[in-house]
């Protein structure tokens, strides 16, 4: 099996995630897109780990997963509280922090 395929898949996932972050307004979807990007990079890490025959990449992937889990907790909490006050989950409605 050609490891390049994994990398291509990871790149595709990452691109989809990026596009999602940029074009979608719903905070939940943006959030999921970010997760997609994280997982794309996880895939890359694991692939390279396999390629080089070391475990460093896998360890990093675990790190990312743990951090992502923590991030999900905080992120969802923020989104939830914003939704409660502003009755909207659109990221474009959250623009008070500006010039």
């Amino acid at each position: 099996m050609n490891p390049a395929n994994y990398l291509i898949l990871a790149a595709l996932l990452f691109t989809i995630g990026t596009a999602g972050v940029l074009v979608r307004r719903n905070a939940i979807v943006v959030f999921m897109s970010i997760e997609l990007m994280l997982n794309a990079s996880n895939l890359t890490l694991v692939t390279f780990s396999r390629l080089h025959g070391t475990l460093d990449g896998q360890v990093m992937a675990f790190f990312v997963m743990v951090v992502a889990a923590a991030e999900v907790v905080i992120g969802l909490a923020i989104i939830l509280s914003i939704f409660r006050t502003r009755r909207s989950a659109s990221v474009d409605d959250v623009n008070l922090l500006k010039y």
Partner: protein
Amino acid sequence: MTHTPVHYAAASGAFSVSWLLILLPLAGAAVLLLGGRRTDRFGHLIGTLAAAASFVVGVVLFAAMLGRSGDDRAVSQHLFSWIPVNGFQVDVGLLVDQLSIVFVLLITGVGTLIHIYSIGYMAHDPARRKFFAYMNLFLASMLLLVLGNNFLSLYAGWELVGLSSYLLIKFWEDRPAAATAANKAFYMNRVGDVGLAIAIMLMFATVGSTSYADVFGAAAANVIGYGTISAIALLLLLGACGKSGQFPLQAWLPDAMEGPTPISALIHAATMVTAGVYLIVRSAPIFNETQAARTVVVVIGAITILLGCVIGCAYDDIKKVLAYSTVSQIGYMFLAVGLGPAGYAIGIMHLLAHGFFKAGLFLGAGSVIHAMDDDQDLRHYGGLWRYMPVTWATFGLGFLAIIGFPGLSGFFTKDRIIETAFDKGGTSGYLLGAVALLGAGITAFYMSRLFLMTFHGRPRWSSEGEDARHPHESPPTMTGPMIVLAVGSTFAGGLFVLGHSMQDWLEPVAGEGVEGVHTFSPIVLTALTLVVVAGGFAAAWLRYQARPVEATARPDTEVTLVTVAARHDLFANTVNETIAMRPGQFLTRFLVWLDLVGVDGLVRGSAAGIGGLSGRMRRLQTGFVRSYALSMLGGAVLMVGALLLVWGG
């Protein structure tokens, strides 16, 4: 090239305390100023005592000097090191010699008399104590000026007399005119001081010293280039013109008459304004080396004689007439000293005689002004001789002395100046002599005018009505000094010329007065002068005695152009305003604007520019998360692209 300094004897005996001369009046001033109101009651006595004590020291020194042989008479005393910086070593030291001692006697003598006079004159002024303090300060400064043994000490005294003059002109400082006149005097004096200061710098740069001994040694050794020594002399002359009210810096002196009359007598007639003459005679070794500078001196003297005389004829203010008379008499002195060794001693003689008669005249004028309720207008006087006989007599003697009545001071000293001017020879000699002669005639005219309008003719005042005047003789404290000065005016001149006494006395300082070839024989010249003077007097008599005098001056439209010009000081103030004051004001205003708009504008502009730029940049912070994400992506792409370019390609 090197050379040796002039030798002065070391101070010993009475000369070792010559600093007392300066210290006594200085202490008087300090006590009066620091003591404050506590000394109000007896302040004038302290002041007068300090002046008198200084005079006594001066007399003692004079006696001690007479006891010395001719070569040892110049005594130099080192007091302390003032400004020592490597090659630049300036000491405070005193030089008591034949020249400075006559000045010491003049300053302290006339000074003491005027202190006594002021006790009466200022009796009703609440600030009399301050007046005496400033007068003492003046005496100390003036003595420092004439006693310093180097040019920097002289300069210190030079500026300090300017300060005392300033303080005393504006003595009645709630009068705006007095404050303005004082400022004007200080400013114009400072213009002259610049010349003196640069001259001193040039001396240091050339000789490496500012002491008389070294500078005169170098000048006498003839090692300094002609250009340099002429420059030094001309710069000294600029200083002298400023202090002595000579053309073109004469305009401050008449304005200075805003000060109390004793001050006009002491500072602006007898002593301070003659400092310029002192400076030139003191610097004789320098002026001896440069014909060019001497020529400028005589030209300035000649111009000033005429200028002072002409304006003196036009004023109706008794003090202003006397002020312009001072200007023109100092012109005579400049003319004399500009003639070089032949004239130094004569210039000093005229200076001393002038010190007596002009001080006397001013004190007399003060007495008249006092009697006439501070009215200074000649046209409001008339017939006063009946009411104030002592003033009339003393003023009359001063008047006769100044116009050169035979036997009185002016006759001896001014005649000698005219004679020396003619003796210079050549066209220039005739020209200068003619100017001096003409000046004598005009002097006789305007002084007679002054005298006749004041003391003779019908009274143009009334002892009744709203503007009633009750002229009365002044108290003895005022008339006493006037009498002494009148006696001095009468006999001083004769004493000086008696057996060449003054010329012989000053010879070590001023050089040997070479008896030139006479252009006219002295008898002829004296006769000629007397005729001219008599003519001046006769003209005044016909105009102001034989005919009644109007109580108000005719308006400018009805008099000749010359009179109009003279009434406006020959437009000296207009010229000063046009070339200095107006452009200066404009420049000042322009610079204030430039600083605000230009220089600071640049500063504020750059601040505003940065502020504006950051204001624009701030707009990038839209608050839309997705646009931030896009810019992050763009940044990441750029970074990756750049890395690929660097490492990949």
